[in-house]
């Protein structure tokens, strides 16, 4: 009975947490469609800038797919405004931002880019 009560309590806390902060634990990978992404040498600034963010664990850049993706630490997220600012500082324009549960490893396989 005590175990059942603990389980119910844990479920309640978890449910409340997801209602209060829906964006925090949900973002495994942030994908950005980027305009102007044509030169690998010039795009280094994207990775350099995004890796400075403490929430970042990994970055993927694909010229072929006009894609920049960021993996974030568990329970962390990076605000859209911050992402747009990072890409602007690197000299590019963000067209769209989406958040998915796909891992960056899966995304790498999908777009055919090797990890570092």
């Amino acid at each position: 009975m005590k175990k059942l009560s603990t389980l119910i309590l844990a479920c309640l806390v978890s449910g409340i947490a997801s209602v209060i902060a829906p964006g925090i634990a949900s973002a495994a990978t942030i994908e950005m469609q980027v305009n102007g992404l044509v030169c690998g040498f010039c795009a280094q600034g994207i990775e350099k800038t995004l890796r400075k963010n403490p929430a970042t664990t990994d970055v993927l850049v694909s010229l072929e797919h006009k894609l920049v993706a960021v993996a974030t630490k568990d329970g962390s997220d990076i605000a859209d405004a911050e992402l747009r600012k990072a890409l602007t500082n690197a000299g590019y324009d963000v067209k769209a931002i989406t958040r998915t549960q796909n891992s960056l490893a899966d995304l790498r396989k999908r777009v055919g880019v090797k990890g570092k």
Partner: protein
Amino acid sequence: MKIRSGLWLGFWLVAASAAHAKPIAFADGTTVMAEYGAGTMKEVQVFYAPTYRYSLGGGHLSLRSDVDGRARDITYARINYLPKRWNLENAQANVFVWASAGRALVDDTDSVFAWNGGGQFDYETRRIYGSLRTDLHESSRYSHRIDTLQLGFAPYKHDYGTLAFWFVVQGRNYTGELYDGIEWAGLLRIFKGNAWLEAGATGDGKLQAMLMFNF
């Protein structure tokens, strides 16, 4: 004499052109460049970009003519500015302008104030590249303007972190009664990661090379 002077300037300026690929890397980025040009020119440049809009830095340009032995050693501070960039879905285009000021040691004897101003428009996709540039150099001992067209073609589409190959053809017109006609050069451009190598030859077979790093 005019032709000899034109050839000497031609060697120098064709070699110098390679360094102008893109004078601003990215915000908080540093660019280091070193060039060897046709046995007549050596140059090093360092730029730091506080934002992607401008970069500050300096360089040293050493010129030795193998035609008549004339020499110029120019040490300068320079600012590069990006007034306009178009980030398109499959292309990028830029307008850059720059200005520099420094001292020029002419023929190892006279040290004079020297300045330079210029601009560049470039357009690039993953397969083609084109740029048009104008560059004005002034001092009490020399004055000239150079207009340069570069057209590049990539045999395949490179991606981020992979090896890129480009073939680049360059044509240059000299004004200010420096040189008659257009001088051509062919270059092979290779880059991967933060390293960029460009090497080729002028129309008369002289080697030119440039190495660049962004970090």
